[in-house]
């Protein structure tokens, strides 16, 4: 009798503990948001909204216009996705549907290596090898441009895009392929007209997650984009230096006085980043829930 009751109490305690650990994740998201608000909200009454969403970022002169940073992030991220989408989906289809076993055995670990390379190492490589190359090829005064950043970012989001797209292709029932092949379609026609369209929603998820990764990437982007806070609106903006939101926070937070307007504004940019990635992830989560996949999440 005693044993059982001791066991029950122990078990009760352990189950409560794991439950708390599971729910702690919600707590952490709330804590992150809370502390961003705590340090960032004062920015909105210390500067006017006009100033905050203005086009000039000169913190030393009291201009806190975040628009150039926002557009900088948008330019770099969108171009990264334009590069990464065809490469990522193409590679995922190749690995899942076309490649012979030995090729898959080589490709998969290499892509995992890419996922493991630290952002700062890719940034360093981008600075020392890629940027001079870009400068030579384009004949520009500097190789540290939005384009260089987009290129590095594209490769950083590729592992995410490839693995999620692979899962999506994997989830397409074999009967779809069999039916297409039985009707006389070639393997290519089967892939292009049946399998990829059937995996569409998963591929969209892959791109969304890649987008989320790209917009939040910091070190590599900061090291290769040249960090000029100007509005990227000219036709050649892609091939000139830009500055992203993430890079601004990372570069300037170390030098500001705590509690200054500049400090609060950097946190406010953090709020902006958090909110943007939150909605991207929310839409991903909703599609995942809707699909009611076979347990677990990726």
């Amino acid at each position, binding site marked *: 009798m005693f044993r059982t009751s001791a066991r029950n109490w122990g078990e009760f305690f352990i189950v409560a503990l*794991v439950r708390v650990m599971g729910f702690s994740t919600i707590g952490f998201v709330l804590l992150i948001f809370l502390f961003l608000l705590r340090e960032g909200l004062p920015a909105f009454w210390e500067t006017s909204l006009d100033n905050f969403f203005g086009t000039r970022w000169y913190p030393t002169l009291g201009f806190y216009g975040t628009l150039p940073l926002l557009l900088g992030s948008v330019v770099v991220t969108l171009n990264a996705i334009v590069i990464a989408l065809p490469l990522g989906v193409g590679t995922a289809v190749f690995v899942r549907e076309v490649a012979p076993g030995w090729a898959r055995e080589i490709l998969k670990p290499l892509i995992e290596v890419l996922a*493991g390379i630290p*952002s*700062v190492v890719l940034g*360093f490589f981008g600075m*020392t090898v890629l940027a001079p190359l870009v400068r030579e090829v384009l004949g520009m005064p500097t190789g540290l441009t939005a384009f260089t950043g987009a290129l590095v970012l594209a490769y950083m989001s590729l592992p995410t895009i490839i693995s999620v797209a692979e899962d999506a292709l994997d989830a397409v029932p074999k009967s779809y392929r069999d039916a297409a092949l039985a009707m006389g379609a070639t393997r*290519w026609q089967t892939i292009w007209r049946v399998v990829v369209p059937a995996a569409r929603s998963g591929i969209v998820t892959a791109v969304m997650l890649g987008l989320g990764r790209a917009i939040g990437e910091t*070190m590599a982007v900061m090291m290769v984009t040249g960090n000029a806070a100007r509005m990227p609106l000219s036709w050649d903006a892609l091939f000139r230096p830009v500055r992203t939101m993430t890079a601004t926070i990372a570069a300037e937070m170390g030098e500001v006085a705590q509690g200054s307007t500049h400090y609060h504004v950097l946190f406010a940019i*953090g709020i902006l980043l958090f909110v943007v990635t939150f909605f991207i*992830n929310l839409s991903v989560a909703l599609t995942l829930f809707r699909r009611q996949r076979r347990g677990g999440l990726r």
Partner: protein
Amino acid sequence: MNRYLQEKVGFAVLGLAALVVVLPILVVVGVIVVRGAAGISWEFLTGMPRQGMKAGGILPAIVGTLLLTLGTALVAIPIGVGGAIYLAEYARDTWTTRLIRLAIINLAGVPSVVYGLFGLGLFVLFLQFGSSILAGSLTLAIMTLPVIISAAEEALRAVPVEFRIVSASLGGSKWQGIYHIVLPQALPGIITGILLGLLRAAGETAPILFTVAAFYLPRLPTSILDETMALPYHLYVISTQVPGMPPQISYGTALVLLTIVLSLNILATLIRAYYRRRRWW
């Protein structure tokens, strides 16, 4: 176009895409290994930096990164594995469970620099840990949590339900079944996930920028409330903030960081491959 020709062209294009993805990876690793090898020496690995980091070694940065990774592991592993056990074994599909899953997806997507801001706001300033190994490890641990939870949950779910049924039929309680039967079977998968999470933490720069990293501190930390140098931040500093840096030192630093991270990566891959072959269910 003949549809068989079309197939050949299509497959060639896909193969080309894979090649374009993979070749630069080899180039990056190759360049850093070749150029970095020139900078590696016993003194470089075990010495203190000298002359404003332009000479000497990177020992404090290596030790700092190892300490931060250890600290991350101590915090993130229990919470991560515990949370995964809850999700895989206890949680039913209710809206609160979905809220947890949403939280995990979100934690995985929060930009690393935002973790840095959060760590600064909560640990460094509010809890007054100061810029310290403690604050940095906690920040990195929360960032690593979603990776560990997702991987561990997947590993637990992969264990067939029969294992749990048999354990219960022999009179074991639910927790006994999990602890003695399910957990050991899922362990290789959980360890792989832990390693993948930790290698990300070891290589991250943005979360430690404002929470622990010291620009130049040529001594070893003596307490968890000390600042420390760390490899990723050191690489950033010497490649952007210090003019006239000898290239073999920056490439050498990059190589040491890459070696630490990739060896964790390879270890994770090997564990997974080994146990997948040995798995009898």
